[in-house]
């Protein structure tokens, strides 16, 4: 479970770091472009935490959990496949690069980031077995996913952009998310908790 939390944190920051690079050809490299990206990521994560927490109330299971990863991967595909098709009309319609970059960030990044944000509270619910452990579990998960974020930030900005094209890095993130989903499903299957049980609690 810890490894998949690492992957989600890693992918969030990899996409965020690349966001500025993806948008620079249309909206430039000014501070406001970074402002747009960070704002959208923060809002999307906030929304994701809310939704993920709410969903965890209804018979939490590994299948739903894995689907967050799969759908985050799928909704990241437009960033790879349609970035120009998305940014071109926005560039034409919005003269001010600040609002242009904000709008483009919303369109490209809000959905996958919201989905990735849903992972944290949901994984807390899946892991907590006893009430007195809930804080400890939440702490552990936030620790692992934030370490993942740090690694994604450093890896992307120091090395990946030097070795690979932007889209190849994004394909790497998509692949990592799908592998994480596979790990969750496998672990869930082995525990017999695929939508039926939550770690020992028969539903």
């Amino acid at each position, binding site marked *: 479970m810890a490894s998949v939390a690492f992957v989600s944190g890693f992918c969030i920051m990899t996409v965020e770091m690349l966001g500025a*690079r993806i948008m*620079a*050809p249309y*909206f*430039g*490299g000014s501070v406001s472009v970074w402002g747009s990206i960070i704002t959208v990521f923060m809002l999307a994560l906030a929304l994701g935490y809310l939704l993920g927490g709410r969903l965890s109330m209804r018979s939490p299971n590994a299948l739903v959990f894995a689907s967050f990863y799969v759908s985050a991967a799928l909704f990241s595909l437009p960033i790879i496949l349609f970035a120009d098709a998305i940014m071109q009309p926005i560039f*034409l319609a919005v003269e001010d690069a600040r609002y242009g970059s904000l709008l483009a960030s919303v369109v490209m990044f809000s959905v996958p980031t919201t989905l990735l944000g849903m992972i944290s509270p949901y994984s807390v619910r899946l892991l907590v077995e006893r009430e007195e452990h809930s804080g400890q579990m939440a702490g552990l998960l936030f620790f692992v996913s934030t370490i993942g974020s740090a690694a994604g930030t450093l890896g992307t900005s120091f090395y990946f*952009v030097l070795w690979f094209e*932007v889209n190849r890095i994004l394909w790497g993130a998509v692949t990592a998310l799908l592998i994480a989903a596979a790990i969750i499903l496998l672990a869930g299957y082995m525990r017999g908790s695929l939508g039926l049980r939550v770690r020992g609690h028969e539903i």
Partner: protein
Amino acid sequence: MLGLLLLALAAPAAGEVIHQERSLYRDITVEQNGPRRCLIFNVHRGDRNQTCIDLNEPERLVFSYTRMSFAGLLLNSEPESILVAGLGGGSIPMTFSDLFPDARIDVIEIDPAVVSVAKDFFLFEETANMRVYVNDARVFIKRAGLEGRKYDYIVLDAFTGDYIPEHLLTREFLEEVRQILNPEGVLVANTFSTSRLYDHESVTYQRVWNEFYNFKLPTSGNRIIITRIGALPPRGDLTGAARRLAERVEKYDIPLLEYPARMSTRVDWDMSRRILTDQYSPGNLLRD
């Protein structure tokens, strides 16, 4: 002993700081040393001067690379529309404005603080024909391309030596620049002469422009790329143009006659280097 100390204190420092501010993009320092006033970005990191002017003779261009930016006149000596990306202290656009008062001059500068400093300390003034746009060069040029605006003379001087705007190094960017250059127009780009980036930039320019003049002087650490859309003129044409123009640019201290011999089309970079694109442009990681 005390006298010595006083003497040491009284001795003129490297220059007196007359203005200092931290903008969104960099630390800006203005230093005055006798009649010479210099603009320095990120002084604590030991950056070189960005621009200097001599207040007694403000037309004179103090820096070699600033003067070199006018070598493009050898390919187009009567530009009617000029684009300068990167304002600095404003000496390049001001010289253009002085040389060609009727030309339309657009200046792009990302940092509004640099615009105020150029106006307050470096005698820069906008005129009816010369306007500064606070914008990212990529955004401005892309939009100019869509609106069909074109220029006779484009100067790319947007690199401060500190942080490199990587989206201004790519093949796609150069293609956008090409779109806004008139068929007779000339592109002058101040680029990197050292580090791995030299090779990467050279192959990228080569891809988009086929050939270009590589212009270097021993007095300057800069490498200036000069090119145009069609084939480059024979060197004889450059020498002829230099002779015709030399007198007109004398007051700015531009030694135009020396330039043709220094403009080379010889390939002196590693051709196997990867081209910089919007997908791959780690300029800041390729500097050393």
